[in-house]
């Protein structure tokens, strides 16, 4: 394990457990006794929040599953060979790997973290993480279906795949210069219980379930928190406020990128929302489709928990200008 580990402190958590359980029970009782479902905003919030989590959790589990398989069942020698490849080979190969990994952004983060921790070059790991939610076949197929009625399906799919690939390569190359231990945030207890290589199948199975659950519960809490923030913003902020910005070229792209951040949609669904912004030019819609799967409210929390400080700022500093430039160029080509 090439990332720093920090020891687990086992404080008495009975009080914390009791407090959290009390809060959950209180929320439940307040909802049922005071009739929260009669409050329209509460109904909107709960439905959007829960639907985001219900849609995302199985993908988080799949990401955790792949991550646990990589950790326990893929021999370290394989990663040694991959790590030995030159970066100009690793980087595009990892980004193109996104074509073969049909999960959304929630699943790609734990996998990328594990790949980097096991020795893949951080730039390549990041390129994979950023490319897979844009390039995976389900996302491209949904983009094609969404835009087929507008007669620009091929252009939008090629634009999304092309800009997504450029974005992943650029961001991976620009941000992935750190060592793994400088990039990844250590987790309590990680690495301690499996510094030895489990050899018996039963031990491997135990390690596998431990890793699976560890990643699932770690990522899951940020999906819940991010889903709550996204639902809160959808409940409170009228989307029509961005409508007035539609006709100003650069501003319209920035407005839809901001909306993509707020909405935190799954990349497999976002094309059906993007196509609804008919008053915005296609280039701005492309910005929505490329920026959203890489930077949104839910992912910002997930990144913050996975990577060291300032990662999100560095990522935005690269992703935003690349997306903006790419979407403007696309707009010019489409005219």
């Amino acid at each position, binding site marked *: 394990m090439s990332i720093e580990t920090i020891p687990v402190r086992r404080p008495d958590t009975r009080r914390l457990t009791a407090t959290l359980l009390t809060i959950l029970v209180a929320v*439940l009782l307040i909802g049922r006794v005071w009739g929260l479902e009669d409050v329209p905003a509460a109904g909107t919030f709960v439905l959007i929040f829960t639907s985001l989590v*219900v849609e995302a959790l199985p993908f988080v589990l799949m990401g955790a599953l792949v991550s646990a398989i990589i950790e326990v069942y893929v021999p370290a020698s394989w990663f040694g060979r991959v790590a030995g490849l030159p970066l100009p080979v690793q980087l595009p190969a990892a980004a193109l790997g996104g074509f073969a990994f049909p999960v959304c952004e929630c699943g790609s983060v734990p996998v990328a973290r594990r790949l980097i921790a096991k020795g893949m070059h951080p730039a390549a790991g990041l390129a994979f993480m950023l490319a897979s939610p844009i390039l995976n076949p389900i996302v491209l197929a949904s983009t094609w279906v969404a835009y087929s009625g507008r007669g620009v399906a091929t252009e939008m799919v090629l634009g999304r795949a092309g800009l997504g690939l450029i974005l992943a390569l650029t961001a991976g190359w620009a941000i992935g210069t750190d060592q793994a231990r400088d990039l990844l945030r250590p987790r309590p207890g990680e690495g301690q219980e499996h510094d030895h290589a489990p050899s018996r199948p039963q031990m491997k199975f135990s390690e596998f379930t431990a890793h699976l659950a560890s990643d699932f519960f770690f990522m899951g*809490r940020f999906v819940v928190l991010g889903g709550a923030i996204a639902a809160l913003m959808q409940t409170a902020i009228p989307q029509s406020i961005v409508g007035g910005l539609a006709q100003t070229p650069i501003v319209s792209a920035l407005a839809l990128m901001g909306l993509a951040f707020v909405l935190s949609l799954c990349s497999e669904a976002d094309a059906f929302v993007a196509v609804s912004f008919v008053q915005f030019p296609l280039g701005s819609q492309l910005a929505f489709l490329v920026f959203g799967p890489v930077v949104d409210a839910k992912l910002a929390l997930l990144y913050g928990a996975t990577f060291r400080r300032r990662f999100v700022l560095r990522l935005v500093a690269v992703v935003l200008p690349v997306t903006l430039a790419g979407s403007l160029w696309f707009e010019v080509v489409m005219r």
Partner: protein
Amino acid sequence: MSNTKLARAIVLTLWSAFFAYLWISDEMVRFLGPRTYWVVPFGCLTLGAAALAHVIALRRERMAGDKTEDGMSRSDVVGIAALLVPIVAVIAVPQAELGAQAVSRKATGAGATSALIAPPEPDAGRPPNFIDVHYANESAEYATALGIGEGTPLNLTGFVSATNGPSEFTLTRFYVSCCAADAIPYSVRVVGEGAGYPDNTWLQVNGVLQSEGQVLKLVAGAIEEVEPPDNPYLN
């Protein structure tokens, strides 16, 4: 470690059971769109399998004589509690729905009715719906292909999302592609004597379309208050 494993197994089981409930009761149609219905049985089975794997690992540890009973870390407690929040929210607000409040937040663009998806293929053989009327308002070509316009009979079921005057209100239904977060409202203005239903009342309206400038409105012949349909969305 066993306390943590046990707690995790319980939460995974709860989530699997929640997915099973959504699946069996068909409640999934309230949260998801048809493109992602498959996530529910998939989540039920995979989360159930993960819970089972946890229980098996725990049992093996105990059979092997591992009596370690160290407590949960703060991180474990917070992670486990966080994953209980959505389930608690659904129990606390069991009939949560997207209604007039959501329409006021989700309507996009300049004007209340400019939320669009790619237009469906015009099919003159089926009865027109909210989406068709919307596109007919946007495109005369579409309206002609579908054969709808002034005088076309229309039967719509939706909820009241706004009252525009003593005899006019807006009837709306959402279209959901993947989940409620991407819901898009489609609205039709209804003119009818005796309007004045409160927001979120589900109505079945029979009438004919009438042009008012560029906009087609539904002039109601009969308005009936109905129960919300099993699937509240246009899919």
